[in-house]
């Protein structure tokens, strides 16, 4: 019997829906599934008990979980977690936690897993230009890519036990700088519309924002755009030296599709490309390609989408 331990993904003080995907993965790796919910308020753990396939919920309550500190979270979770295969999300914070938890237990970590076949785990390498399958023996920590595994459905009735825990915090937050923009970040969006140097000017990104507002999407950018224009911050960059994203829909506008960029978005479920160059490499990866200038295509896309909402 191998036990799977899922560390629930927490976003803005609540359970992130990818937690349901982690539970599906947990059943592919072990026989029973315990979910640990790091929290300051144990009531957030209640919905987890209603997810199908969860055998036990541990609401790990501690002030340590107020802000993320890698050492603090790892020690507080490790002390109350049973032995087994630990499963986390692959958000930047959770990958960090996964690495620390593994090191704490002197076991290994496999990050960004997209498929599981027995003890064989596959992850993208070279930012998705290739795949690597590894085999694990014994205990390990495994982080799971979002939006790949099916979400476990509702219908469970597991017990929730609230456990007080504590950890050794190593850093202190002096100041929080809330993001000025209220727009979604590309790393948390289900739909992304990105612009490249083909947008001509950073001022023209407002046309991407209009479509983004219609769809509830985030706005991203290619490395070329970020490097060319100071007004386009690196936090918007999608690609090998920016963010790797995996949304349901990725709309690339004025982006040629350099290998650097493809590496960061090629696993998106649906890809739409708008480019005036019919030979742009991005079209080889697009489900729907439109050979046109953005000036022609974007207003029509925006009004058509608006009419459907």
């Amino acid at each position, binding site marked *: 019997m191998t036990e799977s331990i899922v560390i629930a993904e927490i976003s803005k003080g609540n359970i992130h829906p990818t937690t349901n995907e982690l539970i599906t993965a947990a059943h592919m790796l072990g026989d029973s599934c315990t979910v640990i919910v790091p929290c300051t308020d144990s009531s957030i753990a209640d919905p987890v008990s209603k997810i199908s396939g969860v055998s036990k919920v541990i609401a790990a309550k501690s002030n340590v979980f107020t802000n993320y500190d890698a050492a603090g979270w790892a020690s507080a979770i490790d002390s109350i977690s049973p032995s087994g295969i630990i499963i986390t999300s692959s958000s930047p914070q959770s990958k960090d936690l996964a690495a*620390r938890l593994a090191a704490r237990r002197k076991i290994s970590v496999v990050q960004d897993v997209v498929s599981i076949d027995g003890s064989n785990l596959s992850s993208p390498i070279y930012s998705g230009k290739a795949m690597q399958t590894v085999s694990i023996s014994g205990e390990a920590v495994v982080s799971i890519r979002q939006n790949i595994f099916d979400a476990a459905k509702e219908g469970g009735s597991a017990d929730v036990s609230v456990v007080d825990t504590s950890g050794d915090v190593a850093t202190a937050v002096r100041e929080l700088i809330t993001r000025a923009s209220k727009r979604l970040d590309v790393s948390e969006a289900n739909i992304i519309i990105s612009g490249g140097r083909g947008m001509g000017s950073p001022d023209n990104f407002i046309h991407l924002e209009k479509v983004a507002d219609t769809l509830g999407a985030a706005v991203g950018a290619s490395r070329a755009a970020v490097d060319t224009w100071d007004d386009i911050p690196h936090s918007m960059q999608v690609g090998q030296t920016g963010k790797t994203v995996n949304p349901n829909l990725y709309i690339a506008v004025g982006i040629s599709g350099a290998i650097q960029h493809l590496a960061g978005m090629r696993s998106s479920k649906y890809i739409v490309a708008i480019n005036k160059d019919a030979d742009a490499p991005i079209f080889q990866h697009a489900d729907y390609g439109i050979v046109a200038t953005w000036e022609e295509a974007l207003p029509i896309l925006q009004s058509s989408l608006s009419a459907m909402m």
Partner: protein
Amino acid sequence: MISLGLHGSVGVIVTKIAVLVKQVPDTNSKILISGNSVDLSSVKMVMSPYDEFAVENALRHKEAVGGTVTAITVGGQGSEKVLKDAKAIGVDEIIRIDCDSYLDSNALQSILSGIVTQEDFEVVYCGKSAADTGAGSTGPGLAEHMGWGSVSNVIEARFDGNFSVVAPLDDGNAIIEVTLPAVISCDKGNTKVRKPNVKGIMQAKRAQVDVRSADVPDSTVSVVSQSLPPAKPAGKKYEGGQAAAEVARLLRDEANII
């Protein structure tokens, strides 16, 4: 606690700073598969992009408090170029830990914690992830092996007064105070990296690599195969901006996204 020494008299406190660097295929290169594994024989190898920010922050740390910067890589002889590149940018010492075999995260971090302990480093900088595996486990894992604090995805290191770093947290960024010893994993952010000058490149050519052997622990993870990602079936392609209306319809009716 070891003081960062920002207010101390420089010259009394010598901060030993390490920076971990890794050689990876140029991010613009195409990855080829031969048999069951990646074939890197014709690929240009470079310093992993985030490591450049780690080197920059390590050098700024030294400039703020005094001390030495040592670049460390784990690999075969072919990986020494990345150390020479770091030397050309301005690090003081370069160490290669001789090991060319596959290492899982625990084995690699054990080796690194060995050298960090041996050399008495007080702060370790590294890239937030290497451009080959993309895993990002080494920084936080090494810190845990050492019993140190760590901050990952750091977009800025500040050496004004107390040592602090800026890293994403929840809805924005946080300024985080760090007590040494610690491991700092660096993202790109707005940090501009310095480029090597001619003098640096000449010095790097002559520099001796300090080669160390390491006890390599057993790995519990082994590589089964490497392959190309599954090819995507050809999509639909339209001419002219009018087609955007049809694409919007397909997104609703075929892809079920809207």
